[in-house]
């Protein structure tokens, strides 16, 4: 029999729905797995064993009494520790927030609970979801970074402690750790998932992300938490798609656009060769592949992105930083210090250039459905002093378009490699359909040797 902690979101939800699996059993199995591996991986800040078991019992009782169950009934999840949980500490990996207990839930917390998910606890984030590394280790090799800033979410899902976790992405903080840990990471269109109750890095760049082990699981979680939120001024009002249906209709090979130049030049040789071989496999299975040029404004994207992130992070932290500067880690401190001296006119010029890039993106999709790149320039570095390189994700976060990473194999050193897929804004269904087709075609599922 399959070990319960290895089940994915769709499997747990289906078995619970069919009364073939007890939510208490699956939560207990995940807690047991978590407690066995946590000393090695350090993926969790807070494990709410009592609360999770109580929620699982309530779910079980409700179902026994014939109550309507949600789409994620009984599915254990973890929340990155920048996501508000009423009554449960949300420390953001920071000494400044060390004792902060929110009085309300983030919208995503509420929506997960409404869908029946069981919150096991809070996963490790780097300090305020920025670049100072967290203590979390990569489940594939504990001498390698798991990536960040959603370090704990990625490590916990990869290690089969939980089937799903939420993270966030301001640069590359969902897709990068997902790729480094060999799982699926999804960042939808900016505003598709509410940011209400999520501690910000940069208001205009922050996205909530989803970390799971399959495209179908990503679709299920997105379906549960996407949608307009009056509490979030950036929330999209456009209707939510049928993501679960999209992954069931993944039988047509997509037209793929590969991006030479930047994404080839900045990847190491092994990643370049692996990506080329992966795209070749997809082409042999029927995908059409052509090269697509980056638009002129791409030349300013990384610089503009860093300016926006520094200034907005500084704006959020300014008051706390004035009185508690010594409590901040070196990289975040530097980010804030830089943000405080960047002239306002340059911040606004970066915003205008961001809009220019957003306006130029559709031209890249004239003849293709989806863009593909390596998810990261290299596999996870053997260096716990870094969270890795976000350059392959930042441009798309900057533009606010949806992206997903799929695991595609292992490096010579035994570390995961991934493929990043990119779609135009609001095209999550297209993205998920193509990602599911690639996933089925490539047939790669990675499990770390734990």
């Amino acid at each position, binding site marked *: 029999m399959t070990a319960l902690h290895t089940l994915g979101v769709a499997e747990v939800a289906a078995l619970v729905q069919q009364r073939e699996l007890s939510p208490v059993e699956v939560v207990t199995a995940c807690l047991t797995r978590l407690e066995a591996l946590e000393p090695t991986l350090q993926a969790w800040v807070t494990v709410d064993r009592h609360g999770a078991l109580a929620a699982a019992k309530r779910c079980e009782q409700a179902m026994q009494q014939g109550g309507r169950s949600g789409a994620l009934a009984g599915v254990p999840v973890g929340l990155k520790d920048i996501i508000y949980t009423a009554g449960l500490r949300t420390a953001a990996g920071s000494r400044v927030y060390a004792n902060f207990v929110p009085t309300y839930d983030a919208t995503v917390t509420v929506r997960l609970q409404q869908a029946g998910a069981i919150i096991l606890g809070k996963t490790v984030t780097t300090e305020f979801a920025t670049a100072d590394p967290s203590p979390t280790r990569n489940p594939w090799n504990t001498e390698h970074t798991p990536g960040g800033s959603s370090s704990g979410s990625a490590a916990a899902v990869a290690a089969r402690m939980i089937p799903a976790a939420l993270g966030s992405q301001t640069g590359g903080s969902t897709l990068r750790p997902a790729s480094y840990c060999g799982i699926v990471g999804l960042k939808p*269109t*900016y*505003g598709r998932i509410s940011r209400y109750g999520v501690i910000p890095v940069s*208001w*205009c760049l922050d996205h909530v992300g989803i970390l799971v082990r399959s495209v179908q699981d990503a679709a299920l979680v997105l379906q549960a938490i996407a949608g307009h939120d009056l509490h979030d*001024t*950036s929330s*999209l009002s456009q209707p939510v798609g049928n993501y679960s249906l999209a992954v069931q209709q993944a039988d047509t090979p997509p037209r793929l656009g590969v991006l030479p130049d930047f994404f080839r030049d900045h990847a190491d040789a092994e990643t370049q060769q692996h990506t080329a071989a992966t795209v070749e496999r997809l082409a042999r299975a029927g995908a059409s592949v052509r090269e697509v040029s980056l638009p002129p*404004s791409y*030349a*300013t994207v990384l*610089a*503009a992105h*860093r*300016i926006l992130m*520094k200034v907005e992070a500084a704006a959020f932290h300014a008051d706390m930083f004035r009185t508690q500067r010594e409590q901040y880690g070196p990289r975040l401190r*530097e980010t804030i*210090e*830089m943000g*405080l*001296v*960047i*002239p306002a*006119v*340059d911040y*606004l*010029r*970066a*915003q*205008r*250039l*961001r*809009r*220019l890039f*957003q306006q130029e993106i559709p031209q890249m999709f004239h003849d293709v459905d989806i863009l593909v790149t390596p998810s990261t320039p290299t596999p996870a570095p053997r260096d716990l002093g870094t969270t890795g390189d976000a350059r392959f994700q930042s441009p798309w976060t900057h533009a*606010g378009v949806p992206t997903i990473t799929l695991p595609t194999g292992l490096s010579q050193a035994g570390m995961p490699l991934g493929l990043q897929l990119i779609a135009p*804004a609001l095209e999550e269904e297209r993205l998920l359909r193509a990602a599911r087709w690639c996933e089925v075609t490539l047939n790669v599922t990675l499990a770390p040797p734990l």
Partner: protein
Amino acid sequence: MAGERTAAEMLETLAAQARLLWGEADAERQRPALSQTAEEIAIVAQATVPADLEPKFFA
């Protein structure tokens, strides 16, 4: 005008602001980060932006 500023000029502007905010010693410590930020600003400053293009903060 933005397009006329070089990274070196920008660095001096940022360093002066840093000295005002944090003092001489901290501003000196920040020099590598200030230099990188000045490079980023120079890239943005030298790019052509259509005059009628407004910023767009949210979706």
